[in-house]
């Protein structure tokens, strides 16, 4: 599967796409009421991202903008968003209220997730120390050397393949305010070369005292992730555990249920799974009586069986 729709909100603000150059700017909404989505023209010879951003800065009181969504930039299949990052950093004095930023909100029809070229995104965190939410889509070329950031509460990295170096960089980061961590680990086919050992600093929770929501998902090694989570110290402080979108089978679910109790969770999200009927029941019977909301929607997860009997299972978002 692929990414089909743009973000509909960020920082609990509904997304609003800043109109193109031929539309008027008279009727724009209040700057602080929406998450502004700024995108390059995807239809050929139109405006590039930095030009759209310059227009945005001229049309909107940027001192009141709280959330920005970077959509597509020109030739995202070939080029990282270096110019985007430079433009944002150059304008940082004009965005004192900015609290949320998402980089690369492109759908399949614009650029498949694993074809989006990324780069080192941590200068944005350094440049916006008050940022509370940061998200990025696309793992190709993505780098995330360890950072310290005192305000970040939510970090989302959506990929079809998350480089191990990024996993390690996030694990080694100092993020004392982080409450919500969402990593799409992806598949080795698209550069997701992390191993469970790379997750250890996250699973220990040593540097993540405020973590309440942990998503380690969309993983080809979802079973191994689940098994590691089963004994991870961080779990006891979580309200939401999300192991969805990956290749989770009875093996991983069995390991998860055989580990530490999960009955303190508010929610366990396993949607898009490959569990057998009995295991679905087992998960439900173990957790639902304790008041845990369990998402076991199969959500289109389908096995392909080759003539030779080999079974193929897929993560929810690869490509």
């Amino acid at each position, binding site marked *: *599967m*692929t*990414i*089909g*729709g*743009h973000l509909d909100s960020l920082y609990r603000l509904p997304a609003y*796409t800043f*109109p*193109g150059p031929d*539309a008027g700017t008279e009727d724009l909404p209040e700057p602080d009421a929406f998450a502004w989505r700024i995108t390059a023209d*995807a*239809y*050929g010879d139109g405006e590039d991202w930095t030009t759209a951003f310059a227009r945005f800065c001229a049309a909107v009181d940027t001192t009141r903008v709280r959330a920005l969504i970077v959509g597509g930039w020109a*030739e995202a*299949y*070939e080029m990282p968003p270096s110019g985007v990052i430079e433009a944002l950093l150059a304008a940082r004095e004009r965005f004192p209220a900015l609290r949320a930023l998402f980089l690369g909100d492109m*759908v*399949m*029809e*614009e*650029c*498949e997730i694993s*074809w989006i*070229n990324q780069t080192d995104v941590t200068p944005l965190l350094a440049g916006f120390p008050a940022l509370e939410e940061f998200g990025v889509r696309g793992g*190709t070329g993505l780098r995330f050397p360890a950072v310290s950031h005192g305000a970040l509460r939510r970090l989302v990295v959506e990929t079809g393949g998350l480089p191990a170096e990024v996993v390690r960089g996030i694990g080694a980061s100092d993020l004392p305010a982080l409450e919500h961590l969402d990593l799409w680990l992806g598949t080795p086919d698209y550069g997701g070369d992390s191993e469970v050992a790379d997750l250890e600093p996250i699973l220990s929770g040593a540097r993540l005292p405020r973590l309440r929501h942990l998503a380690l998902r969309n993983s080809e090694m979802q079973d191994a992730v689940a098994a590691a989570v089963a004994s991870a110290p961080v779990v006891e402080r979580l309200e939401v555990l999300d192991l969805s979108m990956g290749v989770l089978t009875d093996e991983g679910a069995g390991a998860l249920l055989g580990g530490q109790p999960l009955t303190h969770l508010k929610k366990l999200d396993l949607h898009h799974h490959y569990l057998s009927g009995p295991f679905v029941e087992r998960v439900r019977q173990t957790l639902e009586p304790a008041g845990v909301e369990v998402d076991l929607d199969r959500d289109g997860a389908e096995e392909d069986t080759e003539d030779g009997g080999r079974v193929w299972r897929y993560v929810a978002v690869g490509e």
Partner: protein
Amino acid sequence: VIAIPVVRPASSTGLRFAVVGNPGSRRVSLFGDAVRAAGLSGPRVVPWTDVLRERGADFAADEIVRVDSPGEDAEVDRVLRGVADPTRVEGSARWYAAFTAALRGLRGGVRLDDPDDLAVLFDKRRCHAVLDQAGIPVPASPTSGPDGAPVRGWDDLRALMREHRMPRVFVKPAHGSSASGVLAVETGGGRVRATTSVELTADGRLHNSLRVRRYEREQDLAVIVDALAPDGLHVERWLPKASQRGRATDLRVVVVAGRATHAVVRTSRWPLTNLHLGGGRGDLDAARRAVEAAGVRWSDVLGVCERAASCFPRTLCVGVDLLPAIDWRRAFVGEVNAFGDLLPGLTGLPGSGAEGLDTYGAQVAAVLRAPARPGPLHPYRTGTPHA
């Protein structure tokens, strides 16, 4: 302005239809139903097999002649394409030559189509150029019209994509239909990939399948494109389409006598939205709301389709594939289909004049309301304002 069709029959009670088609096909049956529902006797069915065997057919001067698709009939397909296996992708150039020759053999009657229009509609390169010259928004194409670049194979395609800075394109057999042989090709970062319903078998043959698949090895793409190229290829920039509930979305809009009468939304998890490839029907009301929320009038969206249809003024009905841009503020014409009216059970748009009628009923009604005019066939005008 009401579209000005067709013909006044010699006698008002003697209106009679003929249809060139494959007897027993859904198309012929549904058209016959529509004629009978209008209180007329059913159309004379002239089988494509007869037309092809006898190199033509004759019609009475007052017979109203509908030409319907020769498709979905293995024997007709074999004769037209010269390929025994109906699932094979190749042979569309021969199909085109045989089909247009057969059209020229239809003599007499009052035609609801036009051989010259059909010759353009079944050549995507010519069709693109006609639309482009008329100012209809279409995706950019390096193969448009008679001066378009030839695509002799994979190397030509790669060169065109580079030269025209089109890292993502649709590659379509110039004379294909129903997504047969269509590839959505994307390149970037040293990678290449095609999404298509073409199945490349181990012996290098190409078959149409009902399953969309992906090829990521350049040698596979080269084999496929090299095999398709002799039939003629049309290349267009792949413009990102809007989405509905996370699925790529386009519209099929049927235009009858200049007026957009029927529309469906098609959605897919693939860039190819054809219903037989697992696409589903989307939500037309939601599409309209999305368009209006983007500050665009729905009538302007339908107007794009009507303007596209107006490029084929001697053809009563076409099906326009409209590609809404991702922000719903713009829309592009992806295809104009001569036989794009097979939408069983779908009734007309509110205010279109075809409410309660299917696409076939709308065409019969358009013929019946034709004002009295002598002579053969009058162009179908467009420009009808929508409420």
